[in-house]
């Protein structure tokens, strides 16, 4: 009797599992990417039980957008590339070679990987006066505001969550990141970290308002906060539609991600990396990439708003994969050009940057807003 009950329960369990799997499978397949290039392979894998679930999951559009491209995997590739490229480009401008000996045939392209591995295996020191729990948690928690915007960034029909307020949500989540940096500075309990946190907070005020106004100006131009509408309306790129907002956005990107000439919160020579002064080992590896990740998010939004988003070339054989790829390539190119400012500019002082932010820069952004309203009426 008991055995029967168990087997019955087991049967019910099996059935439930089966139902779950088939339900999931149905969800995944209903919204699956269509890539002609790998179709034979996908077809083959789909016949293998369980593996087909995995394949379906990977090719499920929301999953693909968040985890693969332009999401996490893309982010990782971008990180390895940009850290290397920034060093290499800077070296090129500076009459030298840059990292090369690590892998000479590919011009040292895996230098960032070597540094990452070194960080990973290095001792992570938590010094005595730090607030231990927050000190360790914050670099990891800081990934939340990095990952959340990825949900709303669309690439063609590959999108995490589709909403007409996508742009506003992305901006809102990006605005969370400085909070974590300030908190890290506080948890570090060090003089320079303290000064650095203050600087970060001040800089936040300097760039955030013009940045939001620039985005709002573009929303006026397109008449909607929906990324799809924005991309659709860009027969002429947004950069031409509202060049003022374009300039404001570029400066905001530089300011928000602490690039020179606005590398004020970190200010290596003044306050020794400010909020990150005490971090070492893998924790420093995490916080060091934080601002690169922020740059990536802002550049994704930048491409969507000003450079026609995923509209570019279309290769039939890539199918749905084409749009994320175009978006990704555009983003990386934008950033790769942008990092040249590191080798051109000296650092502004905090008060100069804030004055700039609240006077000419704010004025420029308001002008961009007014222009955006006019253009919005016309388009």
């Amino acid at each position, binding site marked *: 009797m008991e055995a029967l009950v168990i087997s019955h329960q087991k049967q019910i369990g099996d059935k439930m599992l089966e139902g779950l799997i088939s339900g999931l499978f149905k969800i995944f397949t209903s919204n699956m990417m269509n890539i002609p290039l790998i179709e034979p392979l996908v077809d083959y894998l789909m016949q293998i039980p369980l593996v087909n679930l995995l394949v379906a999951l990977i090719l499920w559009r929301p999953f693909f957008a968040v985890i693969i491209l332009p999401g996490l995997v893309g982010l990782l590739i971008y990180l390895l590339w940009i850290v290397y490229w920034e060093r290499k480009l800077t070296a090129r401008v500076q009459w030298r*070679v840059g*990292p090369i000996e*690590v892998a000479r045939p590919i011009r040292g392209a895996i230098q960032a990987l070597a540094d990452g*591995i070194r960080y990973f295996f290095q001792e992570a020191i938590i010094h005595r006066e730090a607030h231990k729990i927050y000190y360790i948690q914050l670099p990891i928690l800081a990934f939340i505001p990095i990952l959340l915007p990825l949900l709303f960034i669309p690439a063609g029909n590959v999108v995490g969550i589709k909403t007409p307020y996508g742009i506003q949500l992305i901006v809102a989540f990006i605005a969370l990141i400085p909070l974590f940096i300030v908190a890290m500075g506080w948890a570090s309990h060090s003089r320079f970290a303290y000064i650095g946190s203050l600087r970060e907070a001040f800089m936040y005020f300097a760039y955030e308002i013009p940045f939001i106004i620039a985005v709002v100006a573009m929303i006026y131009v397109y008449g909607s906060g929906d990324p799809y509408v924005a991309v659709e309306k860009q027969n002429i790129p947004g950069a031409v539609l509202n060049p003022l907002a374009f300039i404001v956005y570029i400066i905001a990107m530089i300011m928000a991600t602490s690039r020179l000439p606005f590398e004020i919160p970190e200010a290596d020579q003044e306050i020794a990396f400010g909020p990150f002064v005490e971090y070492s080992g893998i924790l420093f590896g995490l916080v060091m990439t934080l601002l690169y990740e922020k740059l990536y998010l802002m550049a994704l939004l930048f491409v969507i708003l000003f450079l026609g988003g995923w509209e570019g070339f279309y290769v039939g054989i890539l199918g749905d994969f084409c749009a994320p790829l175009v978006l990704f390539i555009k983003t990386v190119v934008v950033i790769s050009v942008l990092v040249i400012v590191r080798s051109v500019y000296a650092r502004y002082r905090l008060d100069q940057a804030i004055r700039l932010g609240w006077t000419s820069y704010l004025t420029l952004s308001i002008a961009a807003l007014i222009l955006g309203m006019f253009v919005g009426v016309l388009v």
Partner: protein
Amino acid sequence: MEENIKFLRSGILAPIKKWGTHWSLWPVHLVTACCGAELAHAFASGYDGERIGALNYGIARQTNLIIVEGAITRKMARVLRITWEQMPDPKFVIIMGTCGLNGGVFWNSYHLVKPFEVVPVNYFIPGCPSTPEALLRGIRQLQNEIRTGEPRSSIEFEKVDLGKGKMMPVTPKSPKKISLAPSIVVNVPRKADEETKKLADEISKLGLATTVTGKNRIALRVEKDELVDAAKKLQNFGFDHVKNVNVIDVPNEDKFIVEYHLGSYSKRELMPVVLNLFTELPRSEPKLKSLAKIFPSADYMEREMHDFFGVVFEGNEWMGRKFLLAPDTPEYPLKKDFKLEEEKYLR
């Protein structure tokens, strides 16, 4: 914990770790002395240390290599140790420059310590300063050591038999001749041009006895108590800053000679002139009034002389405290009774 460390050192991931560490030796920014100039060359456009993965980086926490650039003084030794302790494991030390090895030209200095007694050292690089190539060679050797696990010098000397013999019975005399009873006169009159003589006469009219000690050099002797008055007079005359404060220790006459070299920036005709205002003090009670109030430019040099000789400049707020020297330096090292180690010519 120890197991974990052991796993990291020799476990399955050890080769990856070694590879990462070996291509990512980041020296910390700890400039300790003048070899820093060559270090900068090694990491600047000319040699570009970044090629081999070494990126000069800001502070101790994020780096794993200390390059000790030359002399480590008693003051700096503490900082070196603190920096080394702040660095996360695994960490390495390279010493460049002879100052950091056995002192080089400063081998018998009273203010130097040997860095290899402060921190464990992986490689030593000779040279004063070491060339950028030598520094890169040091980093390269360290990379090889991390990769292969066996430390090696990059040079091999070939021995040639030169026979065996004895040193001669008498050690050759040192070339130094040092007078045992030196007589020190700082105002030896020397011939000079007319202008200097005229100027000396003019200054003499202020009621101060001058000697011309060369072209544009005038010496002026005053008594200890008259120093402040004389300085005020000279300030009104046009001398506006102190170029040098000097103390000469003459133990066999039991005196200190305290000199102030005055100059002028505001009067064109006084610009080339260096006026040596000096006075003598008994060695047992080396006290005099400070001139730092009249000439603020003398302030730091008076503090320095207090460090070196123990002369008390009354009125200078820094007296009784060390300024330039570390707290554990021998007392008043520039006095003649403090002797340095002598040279040896035989091994």
